[in-house]
């Protein structure tokens, strides 16, 4: 659906995007993540032509975005919804007119507009606020209006630029649930840009981590989490855990496949070793739970234990105590 190949973009001297290549499949929820200012929003704006690019190719539905003329571009954008961090609602119009605005611009007839507005507000659960002004709504409600507006032209793709960043965690989750529902029910391809790892983990199938305008890693969410890719670690930081100076601490990853088997207790019985559990976290993903447990072993047990884990295909990582603990932990 969206095929990006060797994309370059700079603002004057500043290189914003360098050699970006990625592929977004039809009907999936795709995540672009990175720290502020790594160019993820710019990349998103290249998809619908709000920003142009210097070199490379951006194929959306097989069409090169840069090659379109003004008129084609307008018709093309009609097919792509966009949701912004700051909601971007017209303050002097009520909810109804905000949702109707794109359809009016495209000269839909009155009856269709009326029907669609009511349908969409029903979908986002704001039927009772139809004549409210944006100033009377909460952040979460405003973002729902923005979704209804973005869906009003029946887009094939929905782009979300930090759409949850100004919402509190609970509201953000109900927002992602809504995105999930839209994705599953309408089959709309969704591209989510965020710096909140928890949001991605909840809804995305595949993600790309951007670092300084380059693709650091791309792959399925679970894969990237499972392998604890350095870009991911750099992004979410190490959780602040006091690693014991004695013995060796390893991180055992609990994945979809092994989360139902009592791996660690079996290992204790089979190998007759002891360890200290020094930390752990469970994370909820789109349809399952994944997590990690930190265990502290005596040095002489390390080889035995890791061989055991390898034999059972359980991923593990050795934690080094000297690793910097500059953790900018995102909302997890």
């Amino acid at each position: 659906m969206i095929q990006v190949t060797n994309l370059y973009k700079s603002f004057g001297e500043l290189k914003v995007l360098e050699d970006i290549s990625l592929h977004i499949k039809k009907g999936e929820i795709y995540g672009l993540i990175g720290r502020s200012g790594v160019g993820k929003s710019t990349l998103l704006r290249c998809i619908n032509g709000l920003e142009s690019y210097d070199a490379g190719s951006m194929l959306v539905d097989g069409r090169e975005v840069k090659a379109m003329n003004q008129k084609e571009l307008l018709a093309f954008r009609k097919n792509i919804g966009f949701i912004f961090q700051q909601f971007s609602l017209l303050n002097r119009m009520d909810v109804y007119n905000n949702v109707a605005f794109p359809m009016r611009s495209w000269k839909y007839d009155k009856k269709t507009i009326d029907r669609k507005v009511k349908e969409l507000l029903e979908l986002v659960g704001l039927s009772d606020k139809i004549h409210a002004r944006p100033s009377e709504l909460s952040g979460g409600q405003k973002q729902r209006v923005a979704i209804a507006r973005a869906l009003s032209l029946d887009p094939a793709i929905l782009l979300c630029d930090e759409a949850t960043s100004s919402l509190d965690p609970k509201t953000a989750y109900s927002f992602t649930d809504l995105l999930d529902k839209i994705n599953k029910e309408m089959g709309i391809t969704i591209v989510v840009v965020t710096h909140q790892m928890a949001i991605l983990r909840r809804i995305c199938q595949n993600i790309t981590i951007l670092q300084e305008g380059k693709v650091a890693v791309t792959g399925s969410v679970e894969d990237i989490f499972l392998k604890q890719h350095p870009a991911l670690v750099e992004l979410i930081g190490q959780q602040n855990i006091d690693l014991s100076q004695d013995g060796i601490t390893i991180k055992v990853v609990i994945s979809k496949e092994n989360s139902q088997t009592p791996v660690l207790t079996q290992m204790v019985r089979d190998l007759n070793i002891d360890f200290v559990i020094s930390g752990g976290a469970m994370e909820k993903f789109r349809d399952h739970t994944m997590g990690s447990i930190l265990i502290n072993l005596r040095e002489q047990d390390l080889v035995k234990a890791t061989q055991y884990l390898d034999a059972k295909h359980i991923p593990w990582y050795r934690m080094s105590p000297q690793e910097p603990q500059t953790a900018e932990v995102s909302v997890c």
Partner: protein
Amino acid sequence: MLTAEFWADWWRNFEALILPSIFSTIRMTLASVVFGIIFGSILAFFLVKHNPKGLKPRPTAYKIMSFCVNSIRSFPILILIVAISPLTRIVMGTTIGETAAIFPLTIAAIPFVGRVIENALIEVDPQLIEAARSFGVSDNRIIVQVMFREALPAIVNGCTLSAISFLVCTTIAGAVGAGGLGAIALTYGYQNFNNSILYTCVIIIFLLVLLVQTIGNIIYKKLK
């Protein structure tokens, strides 16, 4: 001093001179402001559209427009009226009186109101414009339906400011044959040493300013 004779005299002057000139002043102000708003809006539309950071940047066109706006605005109104009087004669057929004054006043009002509206439009949240672009709304529609609409309260404020400014300008224009309250205050009041006429005009102009500001405030509140 405030004898019956004084008041009789005052009333005669008021009826014969001041009252008609009030309407004359209002007509001149209204005409210049209405034309100013109409043509100023069109000017602001193009200024915003072709601004180097606008929807369709055309730096050269913008510079030319901006230069014209600044040049006309740099003329004090009194000088402008005198300076363009040959042009006024061609367009309006005369250089004296209320009708003649409307032309230079409108010429002065267009860039003034244009700038005021442009400033109001620039203040519109750029994200709203980006949002509209993302729905595939055309540039012209964005300016009219998003920018003008969102900036309407600020535009009304600017127009109130302009109306007051041009109310004052009409009285200045009175010095060079425009008629209206300014002319009465100067010729019959100041030059004739008739303080009652002079200060009556002053008070009426003050009341008119107050009236315009109040109307402006009411509309602003309604729109906000």
